[in-house]
């Protein structure tokens, strides 16, 4: 099996890690210096809980991971002056609700979106606490995940997670500051990867329609069905068909969208496994961002409704 570069790889190997340490060729997480996030805005203003000092930063190969986030922030990545098209996307990285692949599924994605004229905002949402030690944390995360991997949308992790609450606050913040950031409050969406996708989906289907994102980018999220309201936001659903964390079972969630005649698009890449971020060389998954942006354009999210 091709070596994964994301947290998922380590989680899938958790039983082996528990017994033998890292398998050969698998990048073990090592301590890393905390990364500064210039421009990070406390998500709840002066009421923002927590502290940066609780954070645990590590690196698995090239993938930077932060755990024990207690102080949620939103970091803008704005298009160059004159290039903005008014669309905004909040980026929710993944990490099983216990970690954040903050560069691989966060900053990198935001920069790529900003380069396309889309204002991007990386959401550093609060995480379920994990042991400080990297190996202990991997084992803890692996165990927690495996307990509910067959029904993640109904599991304890998303239930305990502050991700959805923080994502809703992020949407509210971007909409409240639309003029300042040159975005159209009607064109603010969410793109999430893995647990970030689950977060985007949860907020996207919030009973309070006004709290939902205008559109959902759902990248390697679980494909299990759930009832979808008749006014659900449009869904862009992309995953690799060889995803090891969420083995392919077709696209029941996309079928739910179709049932209520809401816009949905599906991309099932032949290979890429779980956690490929914006894609990798030698795979069709490196077209992900272009496909997402083309879909936004088709749905008129990249142009102003006003004439």
């Amino acid at each position: 099996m091709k070596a994964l570069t994301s947290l998922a790889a380590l989680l899938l190997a958790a039983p082996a890690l528990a017994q033998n340490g890292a398998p050969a060729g698998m990048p073990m997480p090592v301590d890393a210096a905390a990364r500064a996030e210039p421009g990070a805005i406390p998500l709840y203003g002066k009421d923002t809980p927590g502290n940066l000092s609780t954070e645990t930063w590590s690196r698995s190969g090239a993938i930077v991971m932060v755990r024990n986030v207690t102080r949620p922030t939103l970091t803008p990545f704005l298009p160059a002056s004159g290039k903005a098209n008014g669309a905004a996307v909040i980026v929710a990285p993944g990490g099983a609700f216990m970690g954040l692949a903050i560069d691989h599924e966060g900053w990198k994605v935001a920069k790529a979106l900003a380069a396309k004229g889309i204002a991007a905002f990386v959401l550093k949402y609060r995480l379920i606490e994990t042991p400080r030690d990297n190996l202990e944390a991997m084992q803890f995360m692996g165990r927690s995940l495996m307990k509910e991997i067959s029904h993640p949308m109904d599991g304890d992790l998303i239930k305990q997670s502050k991700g959805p609450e923080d994502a809703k606050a992020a949407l509210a913040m971007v909409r409240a500051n639309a003029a300042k950031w040159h975005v159209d409050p009607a064109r603010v969406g969410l793109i999430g990867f893995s647990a970030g996708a689950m977060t985007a989906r949860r907020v996207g289907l919030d009973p309070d329609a006004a709290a939902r994102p205008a559109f959902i980018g759902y990248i390697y999220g679980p494909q299990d069905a759930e009832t979808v309201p008749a006014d659900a936001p449009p869904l862009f659903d992309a995953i690799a068909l060889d995803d090891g964390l969420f083995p392919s079972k077709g696209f029941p969630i996309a079928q739910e969208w179709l049932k209520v005649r809401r816009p949905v698009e599906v991309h099932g890449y032949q290979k890429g496994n779980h956690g490929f971020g914006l894609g990798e060389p030698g795979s069709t998954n490196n077209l992900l961002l272009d496909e997402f942006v083309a879909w936004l354009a088709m749905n008129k999210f990249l142009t102003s409704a006003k004439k």
Partner: protein
Amino acid sequence: MIRKALLVAMLAFPAPLLAEPVLDMAKAPADAAKGSEFIPVYGKDNPGSPADEVITRFMGRETVLRNITYPTLTPVFPRKGKANGTAVIVAAGGGFSMLSLQNEGWRTANALAEKGITAFVLKYRLNPTPKDDAAFFEGMRKIFESAGKSGGKQPELANPGSDQDALAALKLIRSRATEWHINPRRVGIIGFSAGAMTALRSVQIAPTVAERPDFFGYIYGPMGKIDVPAEAPPMFAALAMDDPLFGNGDFGIASAWKAANRPVELHVYERGSHGFGLGQPGTTTTGMIGQFISWMDARGLLKPELAK
């Protein structure tokens, strides 16, 4: 499943105004593809006659061919020095009663040749239709009328032998692989609608694995679950969610390929209806051909490589 293909005839061409075609079959039938060869796929044993063919201007927009009885293959070569040794047969759609040569045939072939792929446009045999256009359209109208009256029950479509023609085309290309600088183990098919069914059937009826296409693009074909042949070739499946014929949220054929552990890729675009060819402008269906080529690339098929 086959019955639904008849609807293809009426619904296959909602495509907006097309870009200037490279080869316009409407202009001069005899030399429409000036300088191109129309190679009989069965050689001197080729059935039928080109004289049977009828060119019809469909919905005032696009040129289709009817009454093909003499199946042929036309190479569309990449520019000199650009070929990578991979060949793709292009099987256009049209409900087995016409061939969408312009929209899905030549345009696709040119797009592939641009990327160093040697394309071969296949004119496969079709079911007979009245020579006269007016009679043809009247016949179509009657079929849909009776289908409507009988509560959607549509007549079965006869197989005109398009699957045999595809197999013969594969054989022909492989037999001339050296001459055409093609790797005989890198010969695939891209099929649209009835052409997709043709490609799939060629996989199912090939007497040996080696006679099948080495990979295939299955564009807006029926999506129901089927039994996957052992060692089935890799499949790239694409269609639009709002395809009136085959878009019902069931991607069974892709799931079946996956369950059988055969390589598969799936793209289902939000909008594009049926028959979008290289894409309906303003929709994400315009991404299809690039995604197909990217998939070929990921499979190593664009790396220049002749036979080993």
